[in-house]
């Protein structure tokens, strides 16, 4: 079992069209850097200088990481990570109960 990572449509070109890929446990930023090894180019689309980009939202088990431990949020096998572009500040916000 690994971490399940959901990839948004605009980034699926980098994952050979896969909507969901497997990631390694650790922190969110480690997970992103590990994805880069398998899918070159993906990390810089999601993050810059170790920080997740402002218009990319990342959810761990449906919770926005900005309200957990941000880039240092731990992820473990079995967790679900969603990467969701905010599209101009959040109009594409993920469906979740606020």
């Amino acid at each position, binding site marked *: 079992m690994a971490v399940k990572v959901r990839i948004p449509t*605009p980034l699926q070109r980098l994952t050979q069209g896969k909507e969901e890929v497997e990631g390694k446990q650790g922190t969110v930023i480690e997970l992103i850097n590990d994805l880069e090894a398998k899918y070159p180019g993906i990390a810089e*689309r999601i993050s*810059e200088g170790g920080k997740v*980009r*402002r*218009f*990319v939202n990342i959810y761990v088990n449906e919770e926005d990481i*900005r*309200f957990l431990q941000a880039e240092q949020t731990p992820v473990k096998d079995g967790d679900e990570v969603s990467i969701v*572009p*905010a*599209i*101009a*500040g*959040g*109009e*594409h*916000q993920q469906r979740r109960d*606020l």
Partner: protein
Amino acid sequence: MGYVSGLKCRECGREYPVDPIYVCEFCFGPLEVVYDYKKIKKVLTRKSIEKRPKSLWRYKELLPIDGEPQVGLNSGFTPLIKADNLAKVLGVRELYVKDDTVAHPTLSFKDRVVAVALTKAKEFGFDTVACASTGNLAHSVSAHGAKAGFKRFVFIPATLEQSKITASLVYEPNLVAVDGNYDEVNRLCSEIANKYKWAFVNINIRPFYAEGSKTHGFEIIEQLGWKAPDNVVVPCASGSLLTKVWKSFKEFKEIGILKELETKVFAAQATGCSPISVAIKQGSDIIRPVRPNTLAKSLAIGNPADGFYAAQVVKETGGYGEDVSDDEIIEGMKLLAKTEGIFAETAGGVTVATAKKLIEQGKIGRNETTVVCITGNGLKTQEALAGRTAEMHHIKPNMDAFEEILKKIGR
């Protein structure tokens, strides 16, 4: 012949040509229009502006069009009212109301942004315009779009006040009421915008549309006698208006129309939907989305697209953000009406009540010049005041009855 050099991502700075696009392909940041200010500086001066017709198009070089204006030729240039009565009640020396309750043709500041968006939609060659709206934008797209000969699709939250629905339907757009709040309507519209080649004014035309808000700010400067106020209080829904009012001030400085600029920008929200003011008060860079619960429906955007940038402007200028309860909003609306004779929509109540709070807190100085931005007309949201206005006097048709009432009134 235009003065626009292209579009640019606000986040990563990547540049794009002028197209109906709104988001950076690389980092997903919002795109913004870039102008050639050196070129503009040569043609746009106080004198050249003053000679032009009194509409928002008198600042056309600072608007993102290539040709001549095509839509909303009579929009903009609303009054800046010196609000001495309100100033007295609030205990400040100099107060102005920028009064978009009388914007043409649909009585809100959205007539500005839509005039610009639909002119741009014509330039791009679209035959259909669309929007997601909490009401005012629906009216403006319906009306401006009718006059300009567009097919129109207008998406609104189904819970909107009946009066706002009627005020769209009269222009006979395709009005679609969606079971959901504004954020959900917007999300649906983003999907629709991907599939249909329409000019969605607040989606794929957004970078151009949003620029129209600058004219609210240009006019404030011009009407103050080419001076910037010490303070400006701006209501926030998406936060776009606030960022654009500030941008307009900075652009006037940039092209030499303004000599000095030290304005503090203040954000006004309803407590029932205050993601921006809360972030400002907490000193946080993170705009935490909320589920809106306020009678100020035109401001009820729980996940504001420009919230981050609005909070940055407030911080950068030394302003502040505040929010007010539904009761304070109603009191704000009534105060503006009974002191200045201006009936604003609930958003206007938010702005007035917030200004009052900021003055009481000492965040706005009593000896300074302050402008409050009033963005929409109260006749559109009369339901908000049901049972909360003063009572009328009901009498039989005779003098005795009338004089009985006069005694009660105490005259």
